[in-house]
């Protein structure tokens, strides 16, 4: 039995005339934090979106726990335990922080609709149990002071934390974080990194897309470097940073 949680084989995506991802191969080991890096337009988010089921690859396969998932739709992939966050802040703006996380946890409830409408006793006890878990998630992410605040009224850093909280509530096995540190100041970055490390310590596997190189170096055990849709290097962050091809890709991208 392979220790690979996720395997990506010959993954290719074409949008019209543009080849966004070209014959990509990599795998994620259970329990690791894998970083997906590369200059803008390298295809990182496209890969992300394909794993998450937002669109199908043009060719190639994605295998998760032995099952081929590249043709599944998003909700089914999420039900299997792959939960993603979004690059642009995506929340249920008009609902409170607590409600946001409740929605995230819904699939683990197995509530019946009838029970929900008429507030039957089994539903109420299930909801009570979930409430405890939600409280612990919110505390874990440092959001306990904001239970009743509307999501749209949170500061940017808190919003990004809420997004992660929602993802955690969905009980992920593989967590896909799309630029979780975006727009954060130094202190917020440090706090988020601590969170991510703590999440890994709970046994979850993480795939991370991120531009902040210091952050990537500090928490990722392994990184994959993409450029123009192709993998140009793979390995520990320190090793990869020395690779002249990688350096050139980033410098070239800066123009």
């Amino acid at each position, binding site marked *: 039995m392979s220790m690979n949680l996720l395997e990506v084989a010959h993954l290719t995506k074409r949008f019209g005339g543009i080849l966004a991802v070209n014959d990509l191969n990599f795998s994620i080991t259970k329990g690791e934090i894998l970083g997906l890096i590369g200059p803008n337009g390298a295809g990182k988010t496209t890969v992300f979106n394909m794993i998450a089921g937002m669109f199908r690859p043009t060719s190639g396969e994605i295998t998760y726990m032995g099952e081929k998932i590249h043709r599944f739709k998003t909700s089914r992939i999420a039900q299997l335990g792959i939960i993603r966050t*979004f690059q642009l802040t995506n929340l*249920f703006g008009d609902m409170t922080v607590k409600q946001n996380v409740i929605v995230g946890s819904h699939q683990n409830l197995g509530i019946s609709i009838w029970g929900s409408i008429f507030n039957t006793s089994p539903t109420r006890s299930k909801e009570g149990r979930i409430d405890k878990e939600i409280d612990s998630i919110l505390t874990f992410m440092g959001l306990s002071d904001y239970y009743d605040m509307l999501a749209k009224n949170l500061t940017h850093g808190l919003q990004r934390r809420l997004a992660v909280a929602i993802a955690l509530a969905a009980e992920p096995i593989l967590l896909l974080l799309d630029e979780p540190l975006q727009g954060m100041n130094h202190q917020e970055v440090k706090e988020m990194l601590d969170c991510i490390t703590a999440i890994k310590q709970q046994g979850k596997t993480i795939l991370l897309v991120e531009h902040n190189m210091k952050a990537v170096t500090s928490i990722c055990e392994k990184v994959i470097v993409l450029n123009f849709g192709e993998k140009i290097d793979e390995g520990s962050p320190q090793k990869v940073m020395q690779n002249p091809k990688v350096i050139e890709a980033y410098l070239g991208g800066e123009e």
Partner: protein
Amino acid sequence: MIKKPKIIDIVYWAIFIGLFFLPLFTKESYIFHIFCLIGINIIFACSLNTILNIGELNLAQTTFMGIGAYISALIVMRLALPFWIAMPIAMMVSATISLAIGFLTLRFKGAYFLLFTFLFAELVRVLLSNFWIGLFGGVPGLTNIPRPSMSIPGLFSIKFSSNIEFYYLIMILVLVTIFVMRRIDMSRLGLLFKAISQSESLAESTGLSAMKFKILGCAIGCGFAGLAGSLYAHFVGIITPHDFSIHAVLAPVAYVVVGGMGSVYGPVLGTTFLMALSHFYLRQFGLYELLIYGVIIIMIIRFMPEGLISIPRNVSHWYGRLSKKE
């Protein structure tokens, strides 16, 4: 958001009790006629609200009301079954047909549902007007639809032939409708509906099948539309295809939007307010009335999208902010 309704609940209960004892103050049939129509429209507006709550606009909502109306009328008049059987059947037929449509179209993003319901509405209107005229009555429709009656032999017998009696029947059903809507709204199911309408992508990413819930919401909404239709048919006694055409959906959209989409009592408020306004004031303006409805819809959507129901909340919000400044 969860604590406030207590006060509003009391207000609404007070209004309701007042309405309950209305026949003590007046026996004028005309007044009860209007109240009955308002009640039917409230049920319909609530059904429309359910579908708006999942982020979709059902242009065939009145068509489903019409399906409920025709089925109910035909079951009573052709199959000689009582209203009390016809009405639930009508609701179920409406809900089932909407399930089929929902299943076909809600799986797609974009405007498929909107377009399809438009198509469906026209198709049904054409079918009812021109085909199977022996059954549906064609353009003139069905007439002499009987009022319901209820009798337990030996105990009592009610014929809902007077408007006052029908008024109480409708009041009970409006209460039931509001009760169900409220239960859904406060339940986790309601929360999931709202989540899907606020960010479908986020909802899907947590494993929610947006399509499944949208179809469910659609079925619930159309079921209640069928209820409204059945009541309408047996109250007014005459139904024509034109009564349930797409144009008929405009006013209810206005009611819901003005009252407040997404809230339980918004449609109630909007329907009552606009229908009263229309009957007692705007009717005199003839064509201008429809123009005014359109303008109201645009204005509210543009400047007060949460509807009239949000006024108390906003007022107390502003009041709170003002008093903090002192």
